[in-house]
Protein backbone atom coordinates (compact mmCIF):
# COMPACT_ATOMS: atom_id res chain seq x y z
CA UNK A 1 0.00 0.00 0.00
CA UNK A 2 2.77 2.37 0.86
CA UNK A 3 4.25 1.60 -2.50
CA UNK A 4 1.14 2.38 -4.47
CA UNK A 5 0.85 5.59 -2.45
CA UNK A 6 4.22 6.93 -3.47
CA UNK A 7 3.60 5.79 -6.97
CA UNK A 8 0.49 7.87 -7.18
CA UNK A 9 2.20 10.95 -5.77
CA UNK A 10 5.00 10.50 -8.22
CA UNK A 11 2.63 10.38 -11.14
CA UNK A 12 0.79 13.39 -9.85
CA UNK A 13 4.05 15.20 -9.28
CA UNK A 14 4.97 15.01 -12.92
CA UNK A 15 1.93 16.86 -14.08
CA UNK A 16 1.77 19.27 -11.18
CA UNK A 17 4.31 21.69 -12.55
CA UNK A 18 2.67 21.64 -15.92
CA UNK A 19 -0.74 22.15 -14.45
CA UNK A 20 0.48 25.07 -12.36
CA UNK A 21 1.95 26.59 -15.48
CA UNK A 22 -1.35 26.19 -17.26
CA UNK A 23 -3.18 27.70 -14.32
CA UNK A 24 -0.99 30.79 -14.37
CA UNK A 25 -1.38 31.09 -18.09
CA UNK A 26 -5.12 30.74 -17.74
CA UNK A 27 -5.17 33.38 -15.07
CA UNK A 28 -3.18 35.81 -17.17
CA UNK A 29 -5.52 35.16 -20.05
CA UNK A 30 -8.47 35.85 -17.80
CA UNK A 31 -6.97 39.11 -16.65
CA UNK A 32 -6.11 40.15 -20.17
CA UNK A 33 -9.51 39.38 -21.63
CA UNK A 34 -11.25 40.97 -18.69
CA UNK A 35 -9.25 44.14 -19.21
CA UNK A 36 -9.90 44.17 -22.88
CA UNK A 37 -13.58 43.61 -22.24
CA UNK A 38 -13.69 46.34 -19.63
CA UNK A 39 -11.94 48.74 -21.93
CA UNK A 40 -14.17 47.89 -24.86
CA UNK A 41 -17.43 48.12 -22.96
CA UNK A 42 -16.55 51.36 -21.21
CA UNK A 43 -15.20 52.86 -24.38
CA UNK A 44 -18.31 52.16 -26.36
CA UNK A 45 -20.59 53.27 -23.59
CA UNK A 46 -18.53 56.43 -23.48
CA UNK A 47 -19.06 57.05 -27.14
CA UNK A 48 -22.78 56.39 -27.00
CA UNK A 49 -23.37 58.81 -24.17
CA UNK A 50 -25.36 61.61 -25.73
CA UNK A 51 -23.01 64.23 -24.43
CA UNK A 52 -20.59 66.02 -26.64
CA UNK A 53 -17.20 65.40 -24.99
CA UNK A 54 -16.00 68.63 -26.51
CA UNK A 55 -18.59 70.51 -24.53
CA UNK A 56 -17.16 69.07 -21.38
CA UNK A 57 -13.84 70.60 -22.19
CA UNK A 58 -14.88 74.04 -23.27
CA UNK A 59 -17.85 74.55 -20.99
CA UNK A 60 -21.44 75.51 -21.52
CA UNK A 61 -21.08 78.88 -23.05
CA UNK A 62 -18.37 78.33 -25.61
CA UNK A 63 -19.00 79.62 -29.12
CA UNK A 64 -19.57 77.08 -31.85
CA UNK A 65 -16.22 77.31 -33.55
CA UNK A 66 -14.36 76.65 -30.32
CA UNK A 67 -16.40 73.50 -29.75
CA UNK A 68 -15.72 72.35 -33.29
CA UNK A 69 -11.99 72.83 -32.90
CA UNK A 70 -11.91 70.79 -29.73
CA UNK A 71 -13.83 68.00 -31.42
CA UNK A 72 -11.11 67.76 -33.98
CA UNK A 73 -8.42 67.84 -31.33
CA UNK A 74 -10.09 64.95 -29.54
CA UNK A 75 -10.18 62.91 -32.71
CA UNK A 76 -13.94 62.59 -32.48
CA UNK A 77 -14.22 62.79 -36.25
CA UNK A 78 -12.35 59.51 -36.65
CA UNK A 79 -14.22 56.25 -37.10
CA UNK A 80 -15.05 54.48 -33.85
CA UNK A 81 -12.68 51.56 -34.28
CA UNK A 82 -9.79 53.95 -34.86
CA UNK A 83 -10.67 55.88 -31.76
CA UNK A 84 -10.80 52.65 -29.82
CA UNK A 85 -7.46 51.55 -31.20
CA UNK A 86 -5.87 54.83 -30.17
CA UNK A 87 -7.44 54.57 -26.77
CA UNK A 88 -6.31 50.99 -26.37
CA UNK A 89 -2.74 51.84 -27.23
CA UNK A 90 -2.69 54.64 -24.73
CA UNK A 91 -4.37 52.64 -22.01
CA UNK A 92 -1.95 49.77 -22.43
CA UNK A 93 0.95 52.13 -21.95
CA UNK A 94 -0.66 53.26 -18.71
CA UNK A 95 -1.94 56.51 -20.11
CA UNK A 96 -5.61 57.06 -19.52
CA UNK A 97 -5.41 60.61 -20.75
CA UNK A 98 -6.27 63.78 -18.95
CA UNK A 99 -9.40 64.36 -17.00
CA UNK A 100 -11.17 67.37 -18.39
CA UNK A 101 -12.90 67.88 -15.11
CA UNK A 102 -9.81 68.26 -13.00
CA UNK A 103 -7.31 68.93 -15.81
CA UNK A 104 -4.99 66.36 -14.22
CA UNK A 105 -3.84 63.12 -15.77
CA UNK A 106 -6.44 60.54 -14.85
CA UNK A 107 -3.89 58.35 -13.14
CA UNK A 108 -2.81 61.22 -10.90
CA UNK A 109 -6.40 61.79 -9.93
CA UNK A 110 -6.98 58.15 -9.22
CA UNK A 111 -3.88 57.97 -7.10
CA UNK A 112 -5.31 60.78 -5.06
CA UNK A 113 -8.90 59.59 -4.71
CA UNK A 114 -8.46 55.86 -4.50
CA UNK A 115 -6.80 55.82 -1.08
CA UNK A 116 -9.87 57.55 0.29
CA UNK A 117 -12.07 54.79 -1.01
CA UNK A 118 -9.71 52.11 0.22
CA UNK A 119 -9.60 53.72 3.62
CA UNK A 120 -13.36 53.82 3.88
CA UNK A 121 -13.86 50.31 2.55
CA UNK A 122 -11.20 48.98 4.87
CA UNK A 123 -12.80 50.54 7.92
CA UNK A 124 -16.16 49.20 6.76
CA UNK A 125 -14.85 45.72 6.20
CA UNK A 126 -13.03 45.67 9.51
CA UNK A 127 -16.18 46.69 11.32
CA UNK A 128 -18.20 44.19 9.32
CA UNK A 129 -15.82 41.31 9.87
CA UNK A 130 -15.01 41.98 13.50
CA UNK A 131 -18.68 42.08 14.40
CA UNK A 132 -20.12 39.89 11.68
CA UNK A 133 -18.05 36.78 12.16
CA UNK A 134 -18.75 36.34 15.88
CA UNK A 135 -22.42 37.13 15.34
CA UNK A 136 -22.64 34.57 12.58
CA UNK A 137 -20.88 31.98 14.70
CA UNK A 138 -23.17 32.68 17.60
CA UNK A 139 -26.25 32.41 15.42
CA UNK A 140 -25.08 29.10 14.01
CA UNK A 141 -24.23 27.66 17.39
CA UNK A 142 -27.53 28.74 18.89
CA UNK A 143 -29.55 27.93 15.85
CA UNK A 144 -33.22 28.68 16.21
CA UNK A 145 -32.69 30.63 19.40
CA UNK A 146 -33.59 34.22 19.92
CA UNK A 147 -30.01 35.24 19.17
CA UNK A 148 -30.25 33.52 15.85
CA UNK A 149 -33.45 35.38 15.07
CA UNK A 150 -31.93 38.69 16.07
CA UNK A 151 -28.87 38.14 13.94
CA UNK A 152 -31.09 37.12 11.07
CA UNK A 153 -33.22 40.22 11.34
CA UNK A 154 -30.18 42.48 11.66
CA UNK A 155 -28.81 40.88 8.55
CA UNK A 156 -32.03 41.08 6.59
CA UNK A 157 -32.57 44.71 7.47
CA UNK A 158 -29.03 45.35 6.32
CA UNK A 159 -29.87 43.79 3.02
CA UNK A 160 -33.08 45.75 2.72
CA UNK A 161 -32.38 49.30 3.71
CA UNK A 162 -31.39 51.84 1.09
CA UNK A 163 -27.95 52.95 2.11
CA UNK A 164 -28.35 56.50 0.91
CA UNK A 165 -31.48 56.84 2.94
CA UNK A 166 -30.00 55.37 6.06
CA UNK A 167 -27.00 57.61 5.54
CA UNK A 168 -29.22 60.65 5.33
CA UNK A 169 -31.08 59.75 8.48
CA UNK A 170 -27.84 58.96 10.27
CA UNK A 171 -26.45 62.32 9.27
CA UNK A 172 -29.60 64.01 10.43
CA UNK A 173 -29.36 62.33 13.79
CA UNK A 174 -25.66 62.18 14.52
CA UNK A 175 -24.54 65.34 12.83
CA UNK A 176 -27.48 67.70 12.70
CA UNK A 177 -29.19 66.84 15.95
CA UNK A 178 -26.49 65.42 18.19
CA UNK A 179 -23.39 66.86 16.54
CA UNK A 180 -21.40 63.77 17.53
CA UNK A 181 -19.74 63.28 14.21
CA UNK A 182 -18.14 65.62 11.77
CA UNK A 183 -19.53 67.14 8.63
CA UNK A 184 -19.53 64.97 5.49
CA UNK A 185 -16.07 64.91 4.02
CA UNK A 186 -12.84 63.22 4.82
CA UNK A 187 -11.08 65.71 7.00
CA UNK A 188 -11.81 69.10 8.41
CA UNK A 189 -10.63 71.97 6.24
CA UNK A 190 -8.80 73.32 9.24
CA UNK A 191 -6.44 70.38 9.04
CA UNK A 192 -6.37 70.30 5.31
CA UNK A 193 -3.29 72.49 5.30
CA UNK A 194 -1.76 71.69 8.63
CA UNK A 195 -0.99 68.11 7.86
CA UNK A 196 0.74 66.60 4.90
CA UNK A 197 -0.55 63.40 3.41
CA UNK A 198 2.26 61.05 2.41
CA UNK A 199 0.71 57.74 1.64
CA UNK A 200 -2.72 59.14 0.89
CA UNK A 201 -4.19 57.03 3.67
CA UNK A 202 -4.87 59.87 6.03
CA UNK A 203 -5.40 57.75 9.10
CA UNK A 204 -2.07 56.10 8.57
CA UNK A 205 -0.38 59.40 7.82
CA UNK A 206 -1.79 61.14 10.85
CA UNK A 207 -0.84 58.29 13.11
CA UNK A 208 2.68 58.18 11.75
CA UNK A 209 3.08 61.91 12.14
CA UNK A 210 1.61 61.71 15.63
CA UNK A 211 -0.98 64.32 14.80
CA UNK A 212 -3.49 63.12 17.34
CA UNK A 213 -5.94 65.94 16.86
CA UNK A 214 -5.98 65.27 13.14
CA UNK A 215 -6.47 61.60 13.83
CA UNK A 216 -9.41 62.37 16.05
CA UNK A 217 -10.89 64.55 13.37
CA UNK A 218 -10.38 61.84 10.77
CA UNK A 219 -12.08 59.43 13.08
CA UNK A 220 -15.06 61.74 13.50
CA UNK A 221 -15.37 61.90 9.75
CA UNK A 222 -14.96 58.26 8.91
CA UNK A 223 -16.94 56.77 11.72
CA UNK A 224 -20.39 57.33 10.26
CA UNK A 225 -19.85 56.25 6.64
CA UNK A 226 -17.52 53.53 7.91
CA UNK A 227 -20.12 52.15 10.27
CA UNK A 228 -22.74 52.35 7.60
CA UNK A 229 -20.66 50.35 5.17
CA UNK A 230 -19.65 48.16 8.07
CA UNK A 231 -23.26 47.42 8.75
CA UNK A 232 -23.79 46.30 5.21
CA UNK A 233 -20.81 44.06 5.17
CA UNK A 234 -21.77 42.82 8.61
CA UNK A 235 -25.15 41.78 7.27
CA UNK A 236 -23.49 39.81 4.52
CA UNK A 237 -20.61 38.39 6.53
CA UNK A 238 -22.68 37.30 9.51
CA UNK A 239 -25.11 35.55 7.24
CA UNK A 240 -22.48 33.69 5.34
CA UNK A 241 -20.60 32.87 8.52
CA UNK A 242 -23.75 31.37 9.94
CA UNK A 243 -24.33 29.21 6.95
CA UNK A 244 -20.72 28.05 6.71
CA UNK A 245 -20.64 27.31 10.41
CA UNK A 246 -23.86 25.32 10.21
CA UNK A 247 -22.31 23.32 7.45
CA UNK A 248 -19.11 22.69 9.37
CA UNK A 249 -20.89 21.91 12.62
CA UNK A 250 -22.79 19.12 10.92
CA UNK A 251 -19.60 17.45 9.75
CA UNK A 252 -18.33 14.20 11.13
CA UNK A 253 -15.04 15.61 12.27
CA UNK A 254 -16.94 17.73 14.77
CA UNK A 255 -18.37 14.55 16.25
CA UNK A 256 -14.89 13.14 16.31
CA UNK A 257 -13.61 16.24 18.07
CA UNK A 258 -16.33 15.85 20.67
CA UNK A 259 -15.41 12.21 21.01
CA UNK A 260 -11.91 13.38 21.84
CA UNK A 261 -13.34 15.31 24.76
CA UNK A 262 -12.59 18.79 23.48
CA UNK A 263 -14.52 21.68 24.97
CA UNK A 264 -17.34 23.19 22.95
CA UNK A 265 -15.54 26.49 22.78
CA UNK A 266 -12.52 24.89 21.23
CA UNK A 267 -14.64 22.92 18.81
CA UNK A 268 -16.57 25.97 17.70
CA UNK A 269 -13.89 28.62 17.63
CA UNK A 270 -11.03 26.46 16.61
CA UNK A 271 -12.13 23.46 14.65
CA UNK A 272 -15.34 24.63 13.01
CA UNK A 273 -14.40 28.26 12.51
CA UNK A 274 -11.00 27.36 11.17
CA UNK A 275 -12.71 25.31 8.49
CA UNK A 276 -15.43 27.87 7.87
CA UNK A 277 -12.68 30.46 7.53
CA UNK A 278 -11.67 28.95 4.23
CA UNK A 279 -14.76 30.02 2.28
CA UNK A 280 -15.25 32.96 4.61
CA UNK A 281 -12.07 34.58 3.37
CA UNK A 282 -13.55 34.68 -0.09
CA UNK A 283 -16.75 36.14 1.26
CA UNK A 284 -14.91 38.86 3.15
CA UNK A 285 -12.76 39.60 0.12
CA UNK A 286 -15.84 39.82 -2.06
CA UNK A 287 -17.53 42.10 0.38
CA UNK A 288 -14.39 44.21 0.46
CA UNK A 289 -14.35 44.39 -3.31
CA UNK A 290 -18.03 45.24 -3.18
CA UNK A 291 -17.37 48.11 -0.82
CA UNK A 292 -14.51 49.35 -2.96
CA UNK A 293 -16.63 49.53 -6.03
CA UNK A 294 -20.06 49.94 -4.60
CA UNK A 295 -19.66 52.88 -2.31
CA UNK A 296 -20.82 55.36 -4.93
CA UNK A 297 -23.93 56.24 -3.00
CA UNK A 298 -22.20 56.40 0.35
CA UNK A 299 -19.52 58.59 -1.06
CA UNK A 300 -22.18 60.84 -2.53
CA UNK A 301 -24.02 61.19 0.72
CA UNK A 302 -20.93 61.68 2.81
CA UNK A 303 -19.07 63.81 0.27
CA UNK A 304 -16.26 61.30 0.52
CA UNK A 305 -13.67 62.26 -2.07
CA UNK A 306 -13.19 58.72 -3.28
CA UNK A 307 -13.18 56.86 -6.53
CA UNK A 308 -16.92 56.25 -6.59
CA UNK A 309 -17.65 59.92 -6.32
CA UNK A 310 -14.95 60.66 -8.83
CA UNK A 311 -16.41 58.33 -11.41
CA UNK A 312 -19.94 59.52 -10.83
CA UNK A 313 -18.89 63.13 -11.18
CA UNK A 314 -16.90 62.38 -14.28
CA UNK A 315 -19.79 60.49 -15.76
CA UNK A 316 -22.12 63.38 -15.23
CA UNK A 317 -19.64 65.67 -16.87
CA UNK A 318 -18.94 63.44 -19.84
CA UNK A 319 -15.38 63.17 -18.64
CA UNK A 320 -14.96 59.84 -20.35
CA UNK A 321 -11.23 59.54 -19.81
CA UNK A 322 -11.78 59.66 -16.09
CA UNK A 323 -14.69 57.24 -16.22
CA UNK A 324 -12.76 54.77 -18.33
CA UNK A 325 -9.66 55.02 -16.17
CA UNK A 326 -11.63 54.68 -12.96
CA UNK A 327 -13.58 51.73 -14.23
CA UNK A 328 -10.49 49.94 -15.38
CA UNK A 329 -8.84 50.55 -12.03
CA UNK A 330 -11.85 49.20 -10.17
CA UNK A 331 -12.00 46.28 -12.55
CA UNK A 332 -8.38 45.44 -11.95
CA UNK A 333 -8.83 45.80 -8.23
CA UNK A 334 -11.72 43.40 -8.46
CA UNK A 335 -9.64 40.93 -10.41
CA UNK A 336 -6.75 41.47 -8.00
CA UNK A 337 -8.84 40.89 -4.93
CA UNK A 338 -10.27 37.79 -6.48
CA UNK A 339 -6.78 36.55 -7.10
CA UNK A 340 -5.75 37.44 -3.58
CA UNK A 341 -8.69 35.64 -2.04
CA UNK A 342 -7.86 32.69 -4.23
CA UNK A 343 -4.33 32.68 -2.88
CA UNK A 344 -5.57 33.04 0.67
CA UNK A 345 -7.99 30.22 0.06
CA UNK A 346 -5.09 28.12 -1.06
CA UNK A 347 -3.00 28.86 1.97
CA UNK A 348 -5.87 28.32 4.35
CA UNK A 349 -7.07 25.11 2.82
CA UNK A 350 -4.38 22.46 2.81
CA UNK A 351 -6.44 20.42 0.38
CA UNK A 352 -5.90 22.92 -2.40
CA UNK A 353 -2.32 23.56 -1.44
CA UNK A 354 -0.75 20.35 -2.59
CA UNK A 355 -3.20 19.40 -5.26
Amino acid sequence: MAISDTNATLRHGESRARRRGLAILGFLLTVATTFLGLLAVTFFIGRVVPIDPALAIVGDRAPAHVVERVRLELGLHLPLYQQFWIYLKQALSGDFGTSVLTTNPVLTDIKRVFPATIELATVGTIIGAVLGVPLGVLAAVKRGSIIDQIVRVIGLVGYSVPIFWLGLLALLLFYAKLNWVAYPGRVDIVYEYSFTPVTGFFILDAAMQRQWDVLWDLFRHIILPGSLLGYFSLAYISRMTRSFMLNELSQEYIVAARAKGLSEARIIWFHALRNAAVPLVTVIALSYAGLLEGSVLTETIFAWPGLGLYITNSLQNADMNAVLGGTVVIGSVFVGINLLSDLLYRTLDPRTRSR
Partner: protein
Amino acid sequence: MTTALSVRDMTVVYNGFAALDRVSVDVSHGESFGIVGESGSGKSTLLRAVTGLTCFQEGSLTVDGRSYDGRKRDTSFYRTVQMVFQDPYGSLHPRQTVDRLLLEPLVIHGFDEVDRRIARALDEVGLGSGFRFRYSHQLSGGQRQRVAVARALIVEPKILLLDEPTSALDASIQAEILNLLEQARRDRHLTFIMVSHDLGVISHMCERVAVMKAGEVVETVPVEALERREFSQDYTRRLLTASEGFRRD
Protein backbone atom coordinates in the same frame (compact mmCIF):
# COMPACT_ATOMS: atom_id res chain seq x y z
CA MET B 1 -20.52 -18.13 -29.12
CA THR B 2 -20.73 -14.62 -30.45
CA THR B 3 -19.14 -11.65 -28.80
CA ALA B 4 -21.57 -9.19 -27.35
CA LEU B 5 -18.98 -6.71 -26.28
CA SER B 6 -15.32 -6.51 -26.95
CA VAL B 7 -12.87 -4.05 -25.47
CA ARG B 8 -9.36 -3.94 -26.88
CA ASP B 9 -6.43 -2.12 -25.34
CA MET B 10 -8.61 0.53 -23.91
CA THR B 11 -6.71 3.37 -22.25
CA VAL B 12 -8.23 6.23 -20.28
CA VAL B 13 -6.04 9.03 -19.03
CA TYR B 14 -7.16 11.68 -16.56
CA ASN B 15 -4.76 14.62 -16.41
CA GLY B 16 -1.80 12.42 -17.14
CA PHE B 17 -3.00 9.67 -14.82
CA ALA B 18 -3.82 6.43 -16.51
CA ALA B 19 -7.01 5.17 -14.90
CA LEU B 20 -7.23 2.41 -17.49
CA ASP B 21 -4.11 1.00 -18.99
CA ARG B 22 -4.59 -1.09 -22.13
CA VAL B 23 -7.49 -3.10 -20.85
CA SER B 24 -8.96 -5.86 -23.00
CA VAL B 25 -12.17 -7.68 -22.20
CA ASP B 26 -14.43 -9.89 -24.28
CA VAL B 27 -17.92 -10.76 -23.24
CA SER B 28 -20.05 -13.15 -25.19
CA HIS B 29 -23.78 -13.05 -25.66
CA GLY B 30 -25.75 -14.14 -22.68
CA GLU B 31 -22.70 -14.25 -20.49
CA SER B 32 -22.46 -12.71 -17.08
CA PHE B 33 -19.06 -11.21 -16.66
CA GLY B 34 -17.67 -9.98 -13.39
CA ILE B 35 -15.03 -7.43 -12.59
CA VAL B 36 -13.43 -7.19 -9.17
CA GLY B 37 -10.70 -5.04 -7.82
CA GLU B 38 -9.91 -2.58 -5.12
CA SER B 39 -11.12 0.94 -4.95
CA GLY B 40 -9.53 3.03 -7.65
CA SER B 41 -8.50 0.13 -9.77
CA GLY B 42 -10.53 1.44 -12.69
CA LYS B 43 -13.61 -0.72 -12.61
CA SER B 44 -16.07 2.13 -12.91
CA THR B 45 -13.86 3.84 -15.42
CA LEU B 46 -14.07 0.83 -17.66
CA LEU B 47 -17.86 0.82 -17.61
CA ARG B 48 -18.03 4.57 -18.09
CA ALA B 49 -15.68 4.38 -21.02
CA VAL B 50 -17.80 1.70 -22.61
CA THR B 51 -20.95 3.77 -22.24
CA GLY B 52 -19.28 6.90 -23.49
CA LEU B 53 -19.63 8.79 -20.22
CA THR B 54 -15.87 9.03 -20.26
CA CYS B 55 -13.86 9.16 -23.45
CA PHE B 56 -11.14 6.62 -23.97
CA GLN B 57 -8.02 7.79 -25.71
CA GLU B 58 -6.80 4.57 -27.19
CA GLY B 59 -8.09 1.16 -28.02
CA SER B 60 -11.30 0.00 -29.57
CA LEU B 61 -14.78 -0.95 -28.55
CA THR B 62 -17.14 -3.27 -30.38
CA VAL B 63 -20.69 -3.80 -29.23
CA ASP B 64 -22.96 -6.22 -31.03
CA GLY B 65 -20.71 -6.14 -34.04
CA ARG B 66 -20.59 -2.39 -34.32
CA SER B 67 -17.50 -0.50 -33.32
CA TYR B 68 -17.52 2.81 -31.51
CA ASP B 69 -14.90 5.43 -31.01
CA GLY B 70 -13.85 7.04 -27.78
CA ARG B 71 -16.39 9.80 -27.88
CA LYS B 72 -19.65 9.37 -29.69
CA ARG B 73 -22.53 6.99 -29.07
CA ASP B 74 -25.76 7.15 -30.98
CA THR B 75 -29.21 6.58 -29.57
CA SER B 76 -29.34 3.03 -30.81
CA PHE B 77 -26.27 2.22 -28.71
CA TYR B 78 -28.25 3.10 -25.63
CA ARG B 79 -31.01 0.75 -26.66
CA THR B 80 -28.47 -2.03 -26.63
CA VAL B 81 -26.43 -1.10 -23.58
CA GLN B 82 -27.79 0.16 -20.30
CA MET B 83 -26.21 0.65 -16.93
CA VAL B 84 -27.15 0.58 -13.26
CA PHE B 85 -25.11 2.71 -10.95
CA GLN B 86 -23.64 2.07 -7.58
CA ASP B 87 -25.28 4.70 -5.50
CA PRO B 88 -29.05 4.41 -5.48
CA TYR B 89 -29.24 7.78 -3.75
CA GLY B 90 -27.33 9.59 -6.44
CA SER B 91 -28.59 7.97 -9.58
CA LEU B 92 -32.18 9.12 -9.39
CA HIS B 93 -33.07 12.69 -10.24
CA PRO B 94 -34.07 14.30 -6.95
CA ARG B 95 -36.91 16.33 -8.40
CA GLN B 96 -38.61 13.74 -10.53
CA THR B 97 -41.20 11.16 -9.67
CA VAL B 98 -40.61 7.54 -10.52
CA ASP B 99 -43.14 7.97 -13.28
CA ARG B 100 -41.20 10.82 -14.81
CA LEU B 101 -37.94 8.93 -14.45
CA LEU B 102 -39.28 5.99 -16.37
CA LEU B 103 -41.03 8.15 -18.90
CA GLU B 104 -37.85 9.88 -19.94
CA PRO B 105 -36.18 6.93 -21.76
CA LEU B 106 -39.47 6.02 -23.39
CA VAL B 107 -39.88 9.50 -24.76
CA ILE B 108 -36.30 9.67 -25.95
CA HIS B 109 -36.50 6.38 -27.77
CA GLY B 110 -39.97 7.03 -29.06
CA PHE B 111 -41.80 4.12 -27.43
CA ASP B 112 -45.54 3.86 -27.56
CA GLU B 113 -47.94 2.72 -24.87
CA VAL B 114 -45.87 4.46 -22.29
CA ASP B 115 -48.34 4.01 -19.46
CA ARG B 116 -48.53 0.31 -19.89
CA ARG B 117 -44.81 -0.03 -20.17
CA ILE B 118 -44.16 1.94 -17.03
CA ALA B 119 -46.67 -0.07 -15.09
CA ARG B 120 -45.20 -3.31 -16.34
CA ALA B 121 -41.64 -2.25 -15.62
CA LEU B 122 -42.58 -1.39 -12.06
CA ASP B 123 -44.32 -4.72 -11.62
CA GLU B 124 -41.35 -6.50 -12.98
CA VAL B 125 -38.98 -5.06 -10.40
CA GLY B 126 -41.44 -5.79 -7.66
CA LEU B 127 -42.70 -2.29 -7.07
CA GLY B 128 -46.42 -1.88 -7.30
CA SER B 129 -48.20 1.03 -8.86
CA GLY B 130 -48.22 2.61 -5.43
CA PHE B 131 -44.67 3.71 -6.04
CA ARG B 132 -45.28 5.24 -9.38
CA PHE B 133 -45.75 8.81 -8.30
CA ARG B 134 -43.29 8.95 -5.50
CA TYR B 135 -40.23 11.09 -5.46
CA SER B 136 -36.95 9.36 -4.92
CA HIS B 137 -36.63 10.72 -1.40
CA GLN B 138 -39.77 8.83 -0.56
CA LEU B 139 -38.08 5.55 -1.41
CA SER B 140 -35.72 3.34 0.52
CA GLY B 141 -32.35 2.41 -0.89
CA GLY B 142 -33.50 -0.96 -2.12
CA GLN B 143 -36.57 0.53 -3.74
CA ARG B 144 -34.46 3.11 -5.44
CA GLN B 145 -32.18 0.50 -6.85
CA ARG B 146 -35.21 -1.32 -8.17
CA VAL B 147 -36.32 1.84 -9.89
CA ALA B 148 -32.86 2.17 -11.37
CA VAL B 149 -33.05 -1.36 -12.66
CA ALA B 150 -36.52 -0.74 -14.06
CA ARG B 151 -35.26 2.34 -15.81
CA ALA B 152 -32.40 0.42 -17.36
CA LEU B 153 -34.64 -2.41 -18.47
CA ILE B 154 -37.47 -0.32 -19.82
CA VAL B 155 -35.69 0.30 -23.11
CA GLU B 156 -35.19 -3.44 -23.52
CA PRO B 157 -31.41 -3.47 -23.79
CA LYS B 158 -29.31 -6.49 -24.57
CA ILE B 159 -26.37 -5.68 -22.37
CA LEU B 160 -26.63 -4.45 -18.83
CA LEU B 161 -23.67 -2.90 -17.09
CA LEU B 162 -23.85 -3.04 -13.32
CA ASP B 163 -21.51 -0.86 -11.28
CA GLU B 164 -21.56 -2.23 -7.77
CA PRO B 165 -25.34 -2.26 -7.77
CA THR B 166 -25.61 -3.51 -4.21
CA SER B 167 -22.60 -2.18 -2.36
CA ALA B 168 -24.59 0.65 -0.78
CA LEU B 169 -27.29 -1.70 0.43
CA ASP B 170 -27.79 -3.88 3.43
CA ALA B 171 -27.05 -7.53 2.99
CA SER B 172 -30.71 -8.51 3.15
CA ILE B 173 -31.69 -6.04 0.51
CA GLN B 174 -28.69 -6.98 -1.56
CA ALA B 175 -30.09 -10.44 -1.86
CA GLU B 176 -33.39 -9.12 -3.17
CA ILE B 177 -31.69 -6.99 -5.79
CA LEU B 178 -29.40 -9.82 -6.84
CA ASN B 179 -32.36 -12.11 -7.24
CA LEU B 180 -34.16 -9.48 -9.23
CA LEU B 181 -31.21 -9.05 -11.55
CA GLU B 182 -30.85 -12.76 -12.04
CA GLN B 183 -34.51 -13.06 -12.82
CA ALA B 184 -34.33 -10.29 -15.36
CA ARG B 185 -31.32 -11.81 -17.00
CA ARG B 186 -32.97 -15.11 -17.33
CA ASP B 187 -36.23 -13.68 -18.69
CA ARG B 188 -34.61 -11.38 -21.19
CA HIS B 189 -31.46 -13.23 -22.08
CA LEU B 190 -29.35 -10.33 -21.07
CA THR B 191 -25.61 -10.04 -21.07
CA PHE B 192 -24.26 -8.75 -17.75
CA ILE B 193 -21.08 -7.00 -16.95
CA MET B 194 -20.99 -6.60 -13.23
CA VAL B 195 -18.53 -4.70 -11.14
CA SER B 196 -18.16 -5.45 -7.49
CA HIS B 197 -15.54 -5.54 -4.83
CA ASP B 198 -17.31 -8.42 -3.17
CA LEU B 199 -16.09 -11.73 -4.47
CA GLY B 200 -19.06 -13.49 -2.99
CA VAL B 201 -21.45 -11.44 -5.07
CA ILE B 202 -19.36 -11.95 -8.17
CA SER B 203 -19.11 -15.66 -7.74
CA HIS B 204 -22.83 -15.82 -7.17
CA MET B 205 -23.74 -13.81 -10.23
CA CYS B 206 -21.06 -14.39 -12.79
CA GLU B 207 -19.48 -16.98 -14.93
CA ARG B 208 -16.18 -15.33 -15.58
CA VAL B 209 -14.35 -12.70 -13.64
CA ALA B 210 -11.63 -10.22 -14.43
CA VAL B 211 -9.43 -9.01 -11.61
CA MET B 212 -8.32 -5.42 -11.91
CA LYS B 213 -5.52 -3.62 -10.19
CA ALA B 214 -4.23 -0.11 -10.80
CA GLY B 215 -5.93 0.27 -14.15
CA GLU B 216 -4.97 -3.07 -15.50
CA VAL B 217 -6.68 -6.40 -15.77
CA VAL B 218 -4.32 -8.72 -13.96
CA GLU B 219 -6.15 -11.85 -14.85
CA THR B 220 -9.41 -13.21 -16.17
CA VAL B 221 -10.60 -16.55 -14.82
CA PRO B 222 -13.80 -18.59 -14.72
CA VAL B 223 -15.60 -18.31 -11.43
CA GLU B 224 -15.12 -21.99 -10.77
CA ALA B 225 -11.42 -21.37 -10.78
CA LEU B 226 -11.90 -18.91 -7.96
CA GLU B 227 -13.79 -21.44 -5.97
CA ARG B 228 -11.06 -23.94 -6.53
CA ARG B 229 -8.44 -21.29 -5.84
CA GLU B 230 -6.93 -21.83 -9.21
CA PHE B 231 -5.45 -18.55 -10.19
CA SER B 232 -2.06 -17.21 -10.93
CA GLN B 233 -2.02 -13.84 -9.21
CA ASP B 234 -1.10 -13.29 -5.63
CA TYR B 235 -3.30 -10.25 -5.65
CA THR B 236 -6.35 -12.32 -6.38
CA ARG B 237 -5.59 -14.50 -3.45
CA ARG B 238 -5.33 -11.55 -1.16
CA LEU B 239 -8.72 -10.37 -2.29
CA LEU B 240 -10.15 -13.81 -1.74
CA THR B 241 -8.73 -14.17 1.72
CA ALA B 242 -9.91 -10.77 2.76
CA SER B 243 -13.43 -11.44 1.62
CA GLU B 244 -13.72 -14.39 3.91
CA GLY B 245 -13.79 -12.24 6.99
CA PHE B 246 -11.39 -11.53 9.79
CA ARG B 247 -9.01 -14.21 10.87
CA ARG B 248 -7.02 -14.03 14.03
CA ASP B 249 -3.67 -15.78 13.67
